């Protein structure tokens, strides 16, 4: 049980953060940017590998995390800058950054792998297998190796993110609701956009610890999307979103641990089912009123 405690606490903390942020992500239509950032993080993992910073030790894992966070933040700001230079066309910017970062990631993986092959002939096959296992972990997440230091770091990051979001909540809501006018009200839309994308990049790297590159962004979309089916009041939407996020993570972990399924994908699948239920509930409520 003690081994599971840091895993469960880290997963619930990250889910809670996902629930709060996903309302902004969905309302501001940033779901695709989330995907872009999470896939871009793959390039960061490649850089960490080439630099020899990898997850063999806890410090190595934290070092790898720092490099991936830094790379993801750069990718997020790059997406923002490209979006501005393409007259607000985020899809073009994401298409460029996502592809470039994924390609960079795979090239660096191969580079790191070939480096090992030349240096340690006897262990080449085992290294090769390790690299593929690592790629799978990066793509789909591996929360099972979360120990207390990693869980503590996750909790600290979640608290920091939620504190920043709370401090700028009014500006964030105004920006997400009506970005073209916020500058006229004395706010700085570029600064708010960059701040939120940095928050999103850090949040996505945290969610990657659970759900990996491929599914991380889902944890920052599904709860908010589901909550918006259930209420037309902003405060209630945030409450429902957190409930879906934390509830989905709890049920997902329960099923995953019992049945031996991979935890990250099971959590995302559970949140997807909750989204589907909320959607059906919305349709039923609309028909009843009509």
């Amino acid at each position, binding site marked *: 049980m003690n081994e599971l405690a840091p895993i469960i606490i880290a997963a619930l903390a990250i889910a809670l953060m996902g629930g709060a942020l996903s309302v902004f992500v969905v309302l501001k239509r940033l779901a695709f940017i989330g995907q872009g950032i999470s896939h871009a993080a793959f390039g960061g993992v490649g850089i960490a590998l080439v630099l020899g910073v990898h997850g063999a030790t806890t410090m190595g894992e934290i070092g790898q995390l720092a490099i991936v966070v830094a790379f993801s933040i750069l990718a997020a700001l790059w997406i923002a800058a490209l979006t501005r230079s393409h007259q607000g066309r985020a899809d073009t910017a994401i298409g460029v950054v996502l592809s470039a970062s994924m390609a960079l990631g795979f090239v660096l993986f191969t580079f790191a792998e070939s480096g090992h092959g030349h240096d340690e002939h006897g262990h080449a096959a085992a290294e090769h297998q390790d690299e593929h296992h690592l790629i799978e972990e990066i793509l789909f997440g591996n929360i099972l190796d979360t120990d207390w230091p990693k869980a503590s770091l996750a909790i600290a990051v979640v608290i920091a993110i939620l504190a920043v979001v709370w401090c700028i909540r009014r500006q964030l809501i105004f920006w997400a609701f009506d970005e073209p006018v916020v*500058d006229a009200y004395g706010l700085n839309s570029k600064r708010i956009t960059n701040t939120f994308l940095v928050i999103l990049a850090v949040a996505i790297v945290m969610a990657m610890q659970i759900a990996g590159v491929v599914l991380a962004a889902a944890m920052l979309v599904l709860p908010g999307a589901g909550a918006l089916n259930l209420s*037309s*009041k902003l405060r209630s939407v945030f409450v429902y979103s957190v409930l879906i996020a934390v509830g989905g993570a709890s049920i997902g972990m329960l099923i995953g641990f019992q049945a031996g399924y991979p935890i990250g994908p099971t959590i995302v699948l559970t949140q997807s089912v909750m989204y589907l239920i909320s959607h059906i509930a919305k349709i039923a409520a609309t028909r009843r009123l009509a």
Partner: protein
Amino acid sequence: MVPAVEIDHVSYTYPASGFDASPLLAIDDVNFTIDEHTKLGVLGPNGGGKSTLIKLILGMIKPTSGTIRVFGRSPIEAREQGLIGYLPQRIEADRDWPISVEQVVALGRACRIKPWKKLAVDDRQAINRAIELVDLADLAHRPIGGLSGGQLQRVMIARAIAGNPKLLVLDEPTVGVDIAGQQRFGELIETLHKELDLTVVVVSHDMRAIAAVADRIACLSRTLHFHDTAQGLTPAVLAQVFAHDVAGVFGDIHIDAHLADDCDDPSHIHQHQHDCGCGDQGGES
């Protein structure tokens, strides 16, 4: 008394935005002041620099040359101090948002409140007053999704005045609105002007929209010309002023260039008349 807006020999050129593009001179040596408590209408063709003028007054872009002061401050300082209220031409806010009329109006005031502070009593009073002034008190707690286009525009006006600005800037506020709607809009702005002691700047390509709101009028087609009338812009004055047929753009409204007394260059007056009357130059507006 410090004027509401001082525009001192301001020009603005949009930089070239690509390999095969060239810089675009949008505003050329514009020089005028707007006194406090006036309601100025800026009339001009599409591409005449109206939106550029608004961006300059709001401090969203900096003049290529010349200076702008808003209540004696830089435009950025003025808007950061909440002195400017702004109604955009297009309401781009998403109607599917789970947000009520009151919450939208509150955004206009709450965005400047420190994060650890709640809305104070006077904040609540200002928000409620803004909602009452635009006659939406009955709908205050409704989600914005169910509102008509006109009601949503009034919500945005209430948001613009909730922070107690001294200058209200309206960008093409009555596009697609019929004459009766323009008249009602003019009455609403008049109420706000009196109740809140506002200076109002409205820009439009539509003479009727300007006439419904403004008591002073200027024509902007890259350069700017004032048309001052002693009595204000009453229907009688309008009939006297608009005697030249420009039906192609303004329907049955006419412009008489001879009343542009402050345009001392006859060729300039002719150009101005041509641009305002016939010009739809396209591009940036």
